Structures are given as C-alpha cells and as structure tokens.
C-alpha cells in the first residue's frame, strides 16, 4: 500500500481549505463545518491501527494549534479514528472495493456517503460536546451538531466528486 503524491496534495489542500477558509469565515454559530477528518477517513483501509491513531492525534494537534484551542480537535479526531476499523468491517468495504481506499465510483454515493457521514457525525459530537463543556443549552448543542455535520458532509462529498472522481482505479 502506498499513498501517492496526488493524495498527499489533496490532503494538504483539505487542511489549508479547513484552516484558512472555513475556520476564518465564521459562517454562523450553528454552522461550523469540519472537513479535515476526511484525511483520516481517506487513508488506506489496511493501514495499521497504531499508525491510524497516531496520525489522527497529530492532525488534531495541528488543527488545535491553528485554532488556539488545546486538545479539543485531538480528542475528537482520535475518537473518530477509533471507530473507523469497526465501520469498515460493518460496511465490509474491503470486499466491495478493490482500491484499498474509499472510492465513490466503485462504492456508490450512498455507501460512501453514509460511511463518511457516520464518521463525521462521531467527530462532530465529540468536538461540540467537549467544546461547550456542558449540557446547559442542550437543544442549542444538538442543533449545532446536526447542522454542522450536514454541511461538512455536503462539502466533503462535493470535494470528493470534484477532485477524486476522475482517477478511478489507477495507482494507489
């Protein structure tokens, strides 16, 4: 398994898009999209567990440093990464896809969408609960989680369709 330069560039693009555009525009208090977890989601399926967790930890740290928060994104991203092997088994993605990594064309929009959606939802729940650090405004918290997850999922699918749809089945 190897990660091509094309993928690394796409990961860097995701990170820059997150840190310098999404985090800077402050769309609305209810809409805080986070698309950087897509980097962890798109890693090869058979990546070893410790590498997956460590890369999630480092990625969270980078986002934390840029956002001026401490530990929030680290916690959410590692938590999400831990659910990834479980979901891959549940969806039996490895059997469906011979590409070793998520590919919309071979998996179909619904399967890949729900896989990404569930993982993003886990990330957002962990992040927003820890961010508010209380359940005082419960309905407010729920609304933030749901709306942000929907917008993140929409953005992720759009980016994947734009940038990842045309290179089906070559390298990797």
């Amino acid at each position, binding site marked *: 398994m190897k990660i091509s330069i094309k993928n690394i560039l796409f990961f860097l693009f995701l990170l820059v898009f997150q840190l*310098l555009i999404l985090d*800077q525009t*402050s769309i609305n208090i209810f809409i805080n999209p986070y698309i950087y977890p897509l980097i962890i989601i798109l890693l090869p399926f058979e990546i070893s567990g410790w590498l997956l967790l460590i890369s999630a930890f480092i990625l969270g740290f980078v986002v934390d440093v840029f956002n001026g928060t401490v530990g*929030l994104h680290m916690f959410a991203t590692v938590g999400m990464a831990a659910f990834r092997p479980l979901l891959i088994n549940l969806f039996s993605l490895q059997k469906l896809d011979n590409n070793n990594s998520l590919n919309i064309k071979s998996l179909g929009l619904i399967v890949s969408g729900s896989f990404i959606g569930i993982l993003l939802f886990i990330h957002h729940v962990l992040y927003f609960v820890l961010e508010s*650090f209380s359940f005082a405004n419960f309905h407010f918290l729920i609304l933030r989680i749901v709306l942000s997850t929907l917008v993140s999922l929409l953005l992720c699918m759009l980016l994947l369709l734009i940038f990842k749809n045309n290179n089906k089945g070559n390298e990797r």
Partner: protein
Amino acid sequence: MYNLFKFIAKYHFFLLFLLLEIISLTLVVQYNNYQKAKFINSANAFTGNIYTIQSNITNFFKLKKVNEQLAEENAYLKSVTKEIHYVEVPMLTSDSIFLTDTLFLDTLISLNYIPAKVISNTTNKQQNIIFINKGKNDGLYENMGVVNQKGVVGVVRNISNNYATVVPIINTGFNINAKIKDSGFFGNLTWDGVNPLYAQLYDIPNHISPQKGDTIVTSGYSKVFEDGNIIGYIENVETVPGKSFIMIQVKLAVSFGNLNYVYALQNNFDNELDSLSYEN
C-alpha cells in the same frame, strides 16, 4: 512479564486509543480555563506568519470597511480634541483666587495605546480566539486589556515575540467585572455561547430597574481595564426566578464579525499595582 507483553500486543489498538484520548482530555480539562492555557502557545511565529499571509490576501477585500471605520474614528477623535481645546478656565475674582492643575492631562496619563492588526478571528465557536500581529517585541504582555474604537474587545492570553492571542468577550471562558454606568451597580459579565452579539451581566440586585440602552462599562476593579471602558448597552432585563439578582442582556459595543484594528492598553502603573497586590 511475557503475559503482559502478550496482553499489550493483543489490545494495542484499544490501549493506544485510551492513552491518546486521556492525554487530550487532560489537556482540555487542564487548560479549559483561559488564564491557565500556557502549555501550548498557539501564538507562535509559524501560525502567525501563515495567518499574516492569509489576512494580507483577504484584507484587500475589506479595505472599504476598514476605511469607513478609520474615518469614523478620526471624526470621534476630532470631536474629542475640540473639547480639550475649549476647557473653560475659571474666572479669577478679586476675593477668591484658586488655580486648577493645568497639567492634569499629563500627570494622569497611565495608559499607552499599542495598535495591532487582527490577523485571524472567529465568531462561531464557543472558545473564540483572536490572533493579532503584535507581541513581546512591541511591548505587549499577558493579561493586557484590548479595545477598539467602539469598546472592550478582550484580554491578551498567549504571547510570542511578534504575535499574540486575545481572548475576546465572546469566549465562554471569559469573565469580567462590569457595572452600569449611571447607577454604579456592578456584576459579572460572561458570554453564554449562543449569540455573538450579546453577552450576559449577572449579579445585579433585583431592586435596580435599569433602562434599555443604558451603558455597561468596565468597573476598574481589575488592573486589566481602567474604569469606564464601554462594553455594551442594555438590551433587556430578565428576572431569574427564585433569585434576588437579575440577568441583563448586553448588546456588545464591538461587532466581532468585522474586527480589523485593535489597541492593546499598556498600563504604566502595572508593576506598581502588581507589587501592591503581592504585598497584601
């Protein structure tokens, strides 16, 4: 011993997951309080430089707004200097002669304004943070008050040589002692994390009936802000059932959505105040 290694090898994924989550959770809990968050200094040269490049690009599109703000501030400053020019000199009469200290303007200057540019700013998070492009080299230090032409912005938290982060009022960890300008009653101002346009003032006794539009200012009980910096205006007053205090919704004077230039308040008597508070 062998069994222990076998156990670790078997459950390494879960154990590593647990370890990493405990590390991050400890960081969150430990540094949730903004005064303590000094372990990871996000105001470093790396993030600062990247945000500077980014804001240089996006600021181009904000120039019109920035110009308007500066013109507004100029107009305000002009009106203030006019007032200073026409200080009324008391008439000298033959039987009673008194002189006021005409140098009072000089002797009372305890504050320097250090201008800084906002290079990164959010309003949609619970713990919003502002990055500014001035740091230690420009005379900034921790726990410095930050204002703009409209009112109070926040307090300097982390600092590096050329950059600093500011905790704004719209951060759930922020709280400040504030008072109603007219009546002088003071309370605690915090942000509930819901609407970035409003903050909440607690602990005002309920026999006070403040009017909508009254000014809320800093109380001057801390050395961060002097007495009378405008924070906002009363939007509405809510009674808390079963409590002898009221809760006041304060419309913030500063619009955090478009924040371009801010001033850090350098207090020249800071060391003096520090030494006093240590003695007591």
